[in-house]
């Protein structure tokens, strides 16, 4: 158990020793801050008209929900870059034998690596959440909905990281891992855009699609089926990664 934290700490250290983590954090904050400001601006313009409506959407609906939606899409592009190195870089720079020859089991390696990346992602979520909290200076927030958004973003990022980690286990080269996980994520994101398929297939595609589960959670309605979807999704790819390393160890 302690080894998981040791591996996670080293992973995080490596991320922050390279310019990658810093530049991604900076860039992400810049892009989202820009989007956030345009949303706030649009809300300020709409406000007089909204005041006339009886059940008008509040600032949380019009600013916070789109912010977390954009954050998920921007991170869909970024996370493959963070996860691509996890295993395949160790394999390429021949440091994997160090982990394999040490008395460390495969699940500790995988969970350690995963925990390292997820910690970085949690830092990102925290930094993003500072923006909506700044709105408290001039208005009120629907905190329930804000927490639902934070939860939704955390779960969706954890799932992104899990699939990225798995592809990093499979791919021989970090670039291939990045491209693979990016395509897989994009496909899962747009999976329910299809229409006119047989209703039976449609239900399955709809269930697999990340976007609908993400939006359900974002709406503030926390359903166990959506939570289970994300937890099962991450668990599946972590287990597959462990399996993959087990298989490889026997081969070597």
């Amino acid at each position, binding site marked *: 158990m302690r*080894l998981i934290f*040791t591996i996670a700490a080293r992973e995080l250290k*490596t991320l922050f020793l390279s310019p990658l983590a810093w530049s991604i954090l900076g860039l992400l904050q810049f892009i989202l801050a820009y989007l956030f400001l345009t949303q706030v601006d649009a809300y300020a313009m709409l406000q007089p008209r909204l005041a006339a409506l009886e059940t008008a959407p509040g600032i949380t609906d019009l600013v916070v929900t789109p912010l977390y939606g954009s954050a998920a899409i921007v991170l869909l592009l970024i996370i493959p870059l963070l996860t691509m190195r996890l295993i395949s870089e160790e394999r390429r720079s021949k440091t994997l034998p*160090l982990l394999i020859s040490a*008395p460390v*089991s495969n699940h500790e390696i995988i969970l350690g690596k995963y925990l390292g990346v997820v910690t970085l992602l949690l830092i990102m979520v925290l930094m993003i959440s500072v923006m909506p909290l700044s709105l408290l200076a001039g208005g009120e927030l629907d905190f329930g909905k804000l927490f639902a958004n934070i939860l939704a973003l955390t779960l969706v990022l954890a799932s992104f990281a899990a699939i990225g980690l798995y592809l990093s286990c499979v791919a021989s080269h970090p670039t291939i891992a990045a491209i693979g996980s990016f395509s897989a994520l994009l496909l899962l994101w747009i999976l329910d855009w299809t229409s006119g398929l047989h209703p039976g297939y449609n239900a399955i595609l709809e269930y697999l699609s990340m976007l609908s589960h993400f939006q359900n959670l974002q709406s503030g309605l926390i359903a166990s089926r959506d939570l289970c979807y994300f937890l099962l999704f991450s668990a599946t790819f972590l287990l597959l990664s462990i399996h993959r390393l087990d298989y490889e160890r026997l081969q070597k």
Partner: protein
Amino acid sequence: MATLIQAEQLSRYFGDHCAVREVDFSVARGEVLGFLGPNGAGQILINGIDLLDRPREAKSQLGYLPDNPPVYRELTVQEYLEYCAALHRIPRPARYHAIEKSKRRCGLESVAGRLIGNLSKGFQQRIGIAQAILHNPQIIILDEPTVGLDPIQIREIRALIRELGSEHGIILSTHILPEVQESCTHVQIIDQGSLVLKETIAGLERHLNTAALTIRTRDPFDFRRLQSLPGIDNIEIISPEHCRIHHDLENNPAAGIAETIIASGAGLLALVPEKKTMEEIFLALTSRQEAEEPCA
């Protein structure tokens, strides 16, 4: 002497190609076993613990240096060794001492604070060895530890291996034959997956001796005069000052030859027993295998 590592019927396949076929070996404390040729894994018992049934216990007795040192270039030497110590489950209070000892043995004290990526290949190799001996394992496996080093570094590493060999069991895999001669106590040669030679270094030295002497003199000398000495089979005259003498293995005529030449006043410059190089032995052993069928 207690057997530290025992491998039975080791086989390793890459696709259909057989790299190692049913090789057995064992190593005891204080032995340095040199492996010439490729290496692999099958059933391995470390200190009587099965590597596959109880990997964690078995691996904690094992230090491994792959052919490329498994170092993280972005960490400092100290950080790296601390990470390795944690990976090998060295308890926290013992960690400092283990790292200091390992740094001292590998001569890394002066570079402890530097980034591994900025250090030379020789240092990286030593960091790799430091990592392998950190948890004081019973068995150290070194895979081509001197590749890519300059001659001084090679000498240092070989000295270190010999020193380590007195306390641990070491398996050294290499394709450099003099390295085996210099560092090992036992040697095994693998060719096309099969064991072709299993010897102690002393036994290997016997293989190396041939029944031939090279003689050089200052002034021209009629080497045919030596024919009458006991034990001499054949004299091969290369020039008036240089010849090669083949003799009987049991009856070395060197002393008699020296006396005869010195008495003649021709001036003895050199009287050298010829040795086969390891390369020649290797070739002789491996070419013998060629007639046999290749492994499936």
